[in-house]
């Protein structure tokens, strides 16, 4: 059976830790490995940080929405903002590409999300904002390997 959780919060940096810990706690019932849990937290942190600093340009009035669902040993996470959108998604995904070098951004967020999840999808428009979705298999890994 599918199990779904929804979260929404203001675009404040102090909410990043809350968001990644909430998703990780929700995922804990799948009994993930420590490494998988750390990767999941990192991917959530990247998507939420992007929504705050890029989507809403750090305006705390913006709202970040997270939906996480668990089904058949896999977690599906959707992080959405109603911010300014991404002009060129292919370019945004390139390692080291950033539109905020003055903020000391490394341009590694999407690259990290791609490496730390099993499937990453990005949808964006300059009128409605950005939806980042990723899936990660967390359960049964050891069983599947043998």
């Amino acid at each position, binding site marked *: 059976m599918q199990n779904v959780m929804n979260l929404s919060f203001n675009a404040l*940096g*102090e909410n*990043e*830790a809350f968001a990644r810990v909430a998703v990780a706690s929700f995922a804990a019932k799948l009994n993930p490995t420590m*490494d998988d849990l*750390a*990767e999941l*937290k*990192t991917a959530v*942190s*990247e998507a939420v*940080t992007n929504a*705050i*600093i890029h989507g809403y340009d750090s305006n705390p009035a913006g709202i970040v929405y997270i939906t996480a669902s668990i089904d058949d040993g896999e977690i599906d996470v959707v992080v959405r903002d109603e911010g300014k959108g991404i002009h060129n998604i292919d370019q945004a995904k390139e*390692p*080291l590409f950033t539109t905020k070098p003055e*903020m*000391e*951004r*490394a341009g*590694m*967020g999407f*690259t*990290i999300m791609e*490496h*730390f999840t099993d499937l990453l999808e990005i949808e964006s428009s300059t009128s409605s904002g950005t939806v980042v979705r990723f899936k990660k298999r967390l359960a049964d890994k050891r069983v599947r390997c043998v």
Partner: protein
Amino acid sequence: MLTMTAETSGKILCVRLTGELDHYYSEQVKEFVESEMEANQTQHLIWNLEQLSFMDSSGLGVVLGRYRQVNEMGGSVTVCGLNTQVKRLFQLSGLFKIMYFEKTEQDALRRLEGSSCKMS
């Protein structure tokens, strides 16, 4: 939560981070390390991340930013005590190619102090 401390030994500054480094704390780390570097005229910077349980790309940005400053003055950056997750971030972003990596702070100090003895 993130806490930080720093210790100097000659021209070497060692920064120790405890907790989680994300966007919320990255500006604080930047300001702290920059002021320590200025006050101590730091040439070589060591990041001791043994007690850092979590980091995301915001941390990479701070480390890279300080690398640029130190590198401009002819110094070096060493990172030590990486856990699995943090190590993968450094690998993905290619930072292993431009910085030194050691297991412990003592290893890093030994190498740096060894080389500065040779110079004098």
